[in-house]
């Protein structure tokens, strides 16, 4: 279920490679070349070893719900027709977290620990964006 009219990502210079990879259906995050620590969201420098250098590491796109909220009130016009909708914090297998409104989640039975996987969806006048959908057991 694509949702047109959602706010477009305000892309920063640091985030640009993340979105470029999404356009190729790849999910990547910064990896510090000093200590190999993965990090998200993108930032200038590693907060652990202070290295400037990083590359972009591919992720599996699999993870689980770390927390969530079921929004009954549409807080943005794009979700007007979709309430109640589930917005979740996803913890990926590799340990970094991302936020997504979930696809295929039952607002009445969604739980922390629910397995999810990545899917890429077109956003008009932007490109592909990463969303997560519930994995059926």
């Amino acid at each position, binding site marked *: 279920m694509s949702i047109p009219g959602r706010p477009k990502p305000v892309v920063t210079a640091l*985030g640009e490679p993340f979105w470029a990879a999404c356009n190729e259906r790849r999910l990547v995050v910064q990896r510090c070349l000093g200590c190999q620590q993965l990090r998200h*969201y993108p930032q200038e420098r590693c907060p652990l070893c202070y290295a400037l250098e990083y590359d972009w590491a591919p992720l599996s796109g699999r993870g689980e719900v770390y927390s969530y909220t079921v929004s*009954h009130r549409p807080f943005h016009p794009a979700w007007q027709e979709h309430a109640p909708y589930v917005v979740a914090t996803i913890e990926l297998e590799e340990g970094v977290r991302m936020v997504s409104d979930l696809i295929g989640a039952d607002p009445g039975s969604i739980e922390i620990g629910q397995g999810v996987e990545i899917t890429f969806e077109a956003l008009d006048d932007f490109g592909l964006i990463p969303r997560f959908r519930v994995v059926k057991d």
Partner: protein
Amino acid sequence: MSLSGACAIVGIGQTEFSRGTEASTLDLHLEAALEAIADAGLRPSDVDGIMPNELAGTIAEDFILNLGLENVAFGSTIRTGGASLVSAVQNAALAIHGGVAEVVLLAAGRLGFSSQRVSQTSRGAIAPHPVMRHVDEFERPFGNTVAAQWFAQAARRHMHEYGTTSEDFGRIAVACRKHANLNARALMREKPLSLEQHQASAMITDPFRLFDCSLETDGAVALVVTSAERARDLRQTPAVILGIGEGHGTPPTSVTQKVDMTTLEGVRIAGERAFGMAGLRPADMDCAQIYDGFTWTVLAGLEDLGFCAKGEAAEFIRSGAIELGGELPVNTSGGLLSEGHCSGGNLISESVRQLRGQVEAERQVPGCDHVLVSGEGNFHEGSAMILGRAS
């Protein structure tokens, strides 16, 4: 040269809280400012420091212009959302203690109902804010658009880890409402609330129901801070700043990226600093005014400020401890949940009134010598202050 006991809050001003006003934000700030200055027994020309509040969008020049201030030596604005005001008191105290200024005026509050609705934009923002850059790039596009959703996820995780329930949140809402029902200034003074009504209220963003959310409010509060020495000669019993601190959790740009989103890390650190400076413990507090943007932030605040061990606030609340007459009355004005949301300003004005003995008799905490007041803003940034009644 410790800051403990060096400065005091000597004047408070508070406009009527409403849901709809013709006044501008600045009109409200100026009204509260003049009241606070008069309350202290000072004149506007005595003010030489100005700390406008970032959420209101006012600037020092607004006050210089309208109050004819010719002697301003210090102006500064803190940018940690709802944590800003208590942090601003810290900065005011530093400026005074350092000899840069003598009388600092602080004002906060906004048209939270008439124009800056936090239910409609992130933070009720008047302008894009740099601290929102991660949310604007990676969260708003995915529906995580307002603060209620950020804190709801923290609350949900707390429920998962500690067994906290919606009824526990409801008991906080009910306690605040009982206090508001005794407060002539409170928006909800004539509206009782039962736990059943809380549980039946509309789900806003799970687990937050309507009555878990603070009140979008038009209004302003102003404070006057000066040295404890000068305070002795002024009109009111000084509320002496015995301890004060701020804290910044990491990462400070998103709730979802917190290592432990169930802890208000900035509030926890701020509390440790404030208690450490004062040389006091949570058990020494006669009441607490804990920043209540949502019911859950009171529950987490009780834990993170050290009034309860982590995961044990729900039991503390169930015992009735946070109600007037209980072990630790919390948010005795009704707080942001039931008096009105004035960027935390009314938590400070209430603290000062409790110490002065200037609230309705049914609301007065007996023998109120020490009050803790906290701030919380943005993504779990925190501030905390311990005020004591001057002897």
